[in-house]
Structures are given as C-alpha cells and as structure tokens.
C-alpha cells in the first residue's frame, strides 16, 4: 500500500497557500487576533496578580495583626479600628513579644485628629505606635527619622508626618523638621516625613509615640491592634494559634467564639487575593479564547469555499490515483499551516501588545511562557478541528462528480 508522505502534503499545501496569499492572510487573521488576545489578556491578568502580590508584600514581611474586637471576618487589608473599643493591653503585648516565633511586635492605635500648622488646618489620622513600626510594616521615613525607644519611653511629643500631610501643610521644598504642628491642640515637633506609599490612608497619617498618643489623644490604656512580625512565613499559622491561646488565657475567655480580639495573617490574605486574581486571569483568558474560536470558524468557512472551488482539482487528483486520505491530508495540512502561521504572528502581536501596555499604558503585563505554548497549541488544534470537516468533505467527493463540476 503506497501512500504519499507528509512532506508531499506539506509541499502541496504550501504551494496552494502561496498561490492565494491574500486569502491565506485574511484567513489567518482571525487566529492571529485570537492568539494575540489570549496572550495579551493573560499577560494583563498575570500582571495584576503580580502587582497585587507586591503591594501585599509591601505591607510588611511575615506580618500578622492582632485586632481588638469580636471576630467578624471579611476584613482584609485595613480595618477601621476607630470606633471599636480597644481591648489589647500592655500585658498582651509583652506576652506576644516573649513568644520565640515572634521577631518583634508593636502596638498601634488610630484616631482622626485636627492638625494645625501656622494658619493651615487639615484632618489626618494620628497613629500611635512604637519605634519597630517602620521595620514591621515596611514603611519608613524618607526624610528625618522615626522616633526612638527613648522618645517613646519619655512620651516625647514628636511626629513623623505622611507624604500627603507634608504637602498639605508645608508644600514642596520646605524643611518641616523642627517645626511645631498642633494635633487636637497639643504641640508636636515634626522629626521626619514618611515615604509616599500611594494609598491615601497611609500618606495622610501622622505617626507619634503610642505613649504620647495615649496621654494626649485617646486617653485610653489599651491598643487597637498589635503588629507582629513572625520569624518565618511557614510557621505563621502555628504562631497564630499560640497567640490565640495565650490571649484567651490572659483575657480569661473560654473560647474563640467569645474572643474580644481576632487575628489576620498575610498568608490568608495572599491566598485570598491570589484566588481572586486567578479568577480574573481565567476570565480574561476565556474571553480571548472566544475570539480564537471565531478565528477557527473563519478558517472553516474559507476552507469550505476552497474545497468547493477546487472540486475539479480534487477530481483530477483522484482520477490520477489520489486516495481519500491523500486529499484529506492535503487540506488538513493546509488548514493547520494557515492557523499555525496565524498563531506565530499572533504570539508576536500579543507579546508586543503586552510590552506596549506596560511601556505606554502604565499597566503591569507579564507574558507567561505557558500562555504562549497554550496559544500555539490552540492554534494548531483550531486548524485541525475547523479544517477537519472541510477536508473530510473533500476526501469524500466522488471523482466522477468532481470531474464533471464546472
């Protein structure tokens, strides 16, 4: 049984494509756009994932936060603690600091305050905390310095102001260090400016020693929350259980259901956000995949026209000894080559579009090798699937009828 080899099919198909370049290009265009869309949109999805992860990481490394208040769930990055009765004590803080899995811990309480400088007036969030804060929350002064343990111990009325507060009160180019601002009527000396974080809450904050905060701003002895830096990401869950148990004991509570505190850790946060962005990427990819299917239908359409147009050629080939499978092979190869060419150009376009989105659109787009292989494979399968039916029709033609076709 003789049969023509793949090379012959390939040569025949290339010849037929070359003889009608415009049509081949238009046919491939659908696949091209489909593949480019899959790659670019998946890249955007990946980019969103990476940038969200980065911003989560920027909250601080191995961060675990103990909040005051009953566990309600649902709260993620930052919980509004201003209207919750603080329940965490200095004793709680010392206990947390004594756990070996903890590198450091620092309290935090916040309140909205009136800020005055000369004749300017604004509102800001006063954050009372400890000197460990910059390290734990990965958020440091860009100018001047943060307050020290000594300043905390002596309840110094010093303040490190957020970037937005600095702009509102002083304006660019003015050195605020040493200037006095009034928080709810109390004089504080500015000793530094925090780096710009990009979110309005952080940039509109004023950091003061927790001792001074308690004395002059809130008048309360308890903390709204405690920031904890865990030794490692892997043991974070264990650390959470230890802190929960110890706090229940200290607060003389029977179970977590009755707790007046709750914990949130970065790991949970990360996995939640990851889930969301993965769904996002999948959604974008699926939308793009639809255009790939549309491209495939385009191939089918043109191949059907091509089979009809070339009925006579098929008849001649059959009369000269071509078997059904030879004809099938020729047309399928043609469809695959067209969609493959479309796929290759589409990959180029997709990568270029992703690059352009990053470069000019300010969007984070990360092209994954997976999506390239996926799109490439998809375009071959598209050719095979949508070229298959027209090729099958061609192979089933009756040579007598086909020869008679005008």
């Amino acid at each position, binding site marked *: 049984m003789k049969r023509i080899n793949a090379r012959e099919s390939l040569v025949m198909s290339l*010849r037929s494509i070359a003889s009608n370049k415009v049509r081949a290009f238009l046919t491939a265009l659908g696949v091209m756009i489909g593949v480019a869309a899959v790659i670019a949109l998946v890249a955007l999805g990946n980019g969103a994932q990476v940038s969200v992860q980065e911003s989560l990481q920027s909250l601080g490394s191995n961060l675990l936060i103990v909040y005051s208040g009953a566990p309600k769930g649902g709260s993620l990055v930052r919980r509004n603690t201003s209207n919750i009765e603080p329940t965490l004590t200095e004793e709680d803080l010392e206990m947390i600091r004594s756990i070996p899995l903890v590198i450091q811990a620092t309290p935090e309480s916040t309140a909205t305050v009136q800020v005055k400088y000369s004749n300017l007036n604004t509102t800001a969030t006063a954050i009372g905390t400890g000197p460990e804060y910059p390290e734990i929350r990965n958020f440091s002064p860009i100018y001047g310095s943060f307050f020290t343990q000594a300043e905390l111990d002596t309840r110094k009325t010093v303040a490190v102001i957020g970037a937005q507060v600095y702009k509102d009160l002083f304006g660019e180019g003015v050195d605020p260090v040493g200037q006095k601002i009034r928080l709810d009527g109390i004089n504080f000396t500015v000793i530094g400016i925090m780096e710009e974080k990009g979110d309005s809450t952080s940039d509109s904050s004023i950091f003061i020693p927790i001792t001074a905060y308690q004395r002059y701003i809130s008048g309360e002895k308890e903390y709204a929350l405690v920031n904890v830096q865990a030794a490692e990401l892997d043991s974070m869950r264990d650390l959470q259980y230890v802190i929960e148990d110890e706090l229940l004991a200290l607060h003389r509570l029977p179970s977590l259901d009755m707790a007046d505190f709750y914990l949130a850790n970065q790991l949970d946060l990360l996995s939640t956000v990851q889930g969301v962005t993965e769904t996002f990427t999948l959604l974008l990819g699926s939308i793009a995949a639809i255009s790939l299917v549309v491209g495939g239908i385009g191939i089918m359409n043109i191949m059907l026209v091509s089979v009809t147009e070339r009925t006579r050629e098929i008849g001649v080939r059959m009369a000269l000894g071509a078997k059904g499978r030879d004809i099938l092979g020729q047309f399928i190869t043609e469809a695959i080559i067209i969609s493959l060419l479309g796929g290759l150009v589409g990959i180029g376009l997709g990568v270029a579009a992703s690059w352009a989105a990053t470069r000019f659109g300010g969007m984070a787009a990360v092209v994954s090798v997976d999506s390239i292989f996926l799109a490439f494979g998809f375009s071959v399968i598209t050719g095979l699937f949508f070229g298959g039916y027209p090729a099958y029709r061609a192979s089933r033609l009756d040579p007598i009828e086909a020869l008679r076709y005008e």
Partner: protein
Amino acid sequence: MSSMIELLKLSRHYQMGPTTVKAIDLIDLSIEEGEFVSIVGPSGSGKSTLMNIIGCLDSPSDGAYLLDGKDVSNLSKNELAETRNRSIGFVFQSFNLLPRQSARENVELPMIYAGISPKERRQRAVEMLERVGLGDRSDHVPNELSGGQRQRVAIARALAGQPRLILADEPTGALDSKTGVEIMEFFRQLNDSGVSLIMVTHDNELAAQANRVVQIKDGKVLWDGKAEEWVQ
C-alpha cells in the same frame, strides 16, 4: 492468455426514484493489449458510464470486470484509486491540468500518488514531455500553452505512470479541427509504439480512425468490429 480487459455480463443500473435506469445492460467485451479501440455512441447511450467503469472510477452493479485477469468489480475506493494510478492514464476533453502548476509538475502528479521520489519524478516528467514534443515547455503553466500543447501535456501526464492503458474521453472535443487531427496522429504514433488506447467519442469520423470500433446504444453493444468494416 487472458485479455487485458474483459467485461462479462456487465451492468450498471441507477435507481432514479421508482425507475431503474440501465445505463449499461449485460455487456460482454474484451480488449487485447496493444489495441486502439474507439467506443462510439450518442450521448445517453451509456458510453460515459462504460468509460468510467473501464477507468475504475465507478464499479458495475452486476457482472465482472477483469483487468489483466484480475476482477476489479468489487474493489474498495482506495483499491480503485491504486488501480487507476497504476494501470490507467486519463486524457480528458477539457485537459484538466492544474492551472497553477507548470507542465512538468502536472506530469509529475500521478507519480506523486505512486510514491515515486521527487528526483525520479522530475526526470521522468521531463522525458515524457520530450516524448510529446514539449521538452522546451516544461516550466510553462497551462495558460501559457495552446490547446493542442495542453492536450499533449495531459497525454504526457497519462503516460507518466507507465499505465497498461490510455483512456481518452473526447480528446479532440475542445480543439480546433487542425489541432484535433494532430492529436489523433499522435495517438496513432503512440499506438504504433505499443501503447493500448481506448477513445470514447460521439464523433463517428473520429471513431473510424481507430483500429476497432465498438458502437454502444441504449446500454448495449450495437456493433463491434474492425474500423474499416464499420458502416456508420
């Protein structure tokens, strides 16, 4: 020794709604190697159906067709394709060359399906074109050739697979009379060099130029004998 072609009580019926059309009805016919036979008859006589069956494009409904002693009446589609490729060379009225391929590539076509290597194909195609007097036209596409030249390319293509038999269907039908005469002369030469030929035509004068005439009417053989004895 058996004949090259032997048709035994061969019939081809088509079902057209409730009626059965007997395109060929119980034909017995044998053709020897080296003959030049014309099959003649008006349209609707069944000669095209007969040619399709002899050319292995169609299978009979009943009876047997022995090609070189081998019954080919019940072959599968693929086996028929192989038989066509190996044993039969077609020459069509409208040439049926592939328009975008050169003369040489057209001649190579049957050899592709015979699985002959590109190098040998090329060489044989050029030889065939030289044989039909078109050695200098091998790179021309059909559009650049005259009708007679195109038909000669088609004859070269039919010869390329070294078939047992050339089957020509109205080979001069699309040509002017002068070129038609040339093609007929060429067929005579081919036959003199030992090639077996069957020509199907509705033109009695043309049919008379073969050595033997088989006249078909209503699916049956009306007359079969030497061309010079045939009374039109």
